[in-house]
């Protein structure tokens, strides 16, 4: 059954977390898959240079990659040279697309980015070039965890900032700081995704308390089992997509776009 093309999405969605090990990259990968399955033309950039694992979450073998986002940042290639088209037949039949710009696993490329001065202006230029080359509706940026110059630059560009957090005291505090900064930058939309929640807690209650505390919408509360299911969902069928753990997040993004 063909899926009708969805409404216009916000163009830049930055996926961020204050702490590491929140499942941010898994959620970014799952969301990219789901958006493409619903007929969006999606680009996803792995800006988490120091933890370059997004490509593996999307089933890409690092050995086959000649260029990565690192090389683009260092001026060694165009961003389109580093792009990998992962569009699968079913998504293409619904006008969807999925294009990945991975971060490099190669130690010289990681060292290069850390060692060299980087002009952060090319971050925005690269997103625009990628969107133009592949006629993208939406670009997801997997930002580095924590607050550094790359994550702040990503935040400044975001139409939607999706902050992933766990139910953890340090994460509560860090998320609060991140939200304050994003509000100071007048980031148009801030959403929270709670991940790895203890299944004994009631998701509705977690959502209510988070929304009350942070004043942001919390479209999804995922358990570790949800997260694993999302990773296995991959190229989901229409029925599976409806039950996808991130389906509520997709709905929230559409509401923000409309």
């Amino acid at each position, binding site marked *: 059954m063909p899926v009708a093309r969805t409404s216009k999405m916000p163009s830049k969605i930055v996926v961020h977390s204050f702490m590491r090990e929140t499942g941010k990259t898994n959620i970014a990968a799952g969301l990219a898959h789901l958006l493409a399955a619903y007929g969006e033309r999606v680009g996803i950039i792995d800006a988490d240079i120091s933890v370059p694992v997004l490509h593996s979450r999307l089933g890409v073998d690092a050995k086959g990659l000649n260029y990565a986002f690192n090389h683009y940042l260092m001026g060694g290639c165009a961003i389109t040279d580093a792009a990998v088209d992962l569009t699968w037949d079913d998504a293409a039949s619904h006008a969807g697309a999925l294009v990945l710009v991975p971060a490099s696993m190669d130690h010289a490329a990681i060292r290069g980015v850390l060692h*060299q*001065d980087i002009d952060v202006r090319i971050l925005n230029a690269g997103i625009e070039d990628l969107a133009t080359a592949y006629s993208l509706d939406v670009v997801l940026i997997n930002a580095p965890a924590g607050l550094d110059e790359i994550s702040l630059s990503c935040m*400044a560009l975001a139409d939607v900032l999706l902050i992933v957090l766990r139910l953890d005291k340090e994460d509560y505090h860090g998320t609060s700081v991140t939200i304050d900064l994003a509000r100071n930058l007048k980031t148009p939309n801030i959403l929270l995704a709670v991940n790895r929640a203890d299944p004994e807690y009631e998701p509705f209650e977690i959502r209510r308390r988070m929304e009350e505390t942070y004043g942001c919408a919390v479209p999804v509360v995922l358990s570790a089992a949800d997260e694993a299911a999302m990773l296995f969902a991959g190229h989901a069928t229409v029925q599976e997509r409806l039950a996808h753990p991130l389906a509520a997040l997709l709905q929230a993004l559409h509401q923000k776009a409309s």
Partner: protein
Amino acid sequence: MNRSQLIIQEVSRCPAVDGATMADILAFSEPLRLTLKHMVRNGPLPVDQFAEHLEVDLDAARIIAQRLLENGYLEKVYADQIDETNETVQAYSPIYRVALAPLRGRPIPDDL
């Protein structure tokens, strides 16, 4: 003090930098912070639009831009102003963009 004077006072007191970081931009108060963020997102602005974003008059905007330029937060780029009637370049009009500092590389031992 009126709005213009407050912004001029703020930019006159800001420390000189060799290019602005997002953290520097965050340290400004509104409306300067949001105007600079807008320029990071959407690109350079001519002084009249810079004035509109700050909601100050043109003279005040020129002073603010000049102070930011001197202190390393903005840089001036020029756009040709083409007179469409005779297609000649009439003048060079200043356009300001945020002088974003590069992410500074760190020395890393070769054997790492």
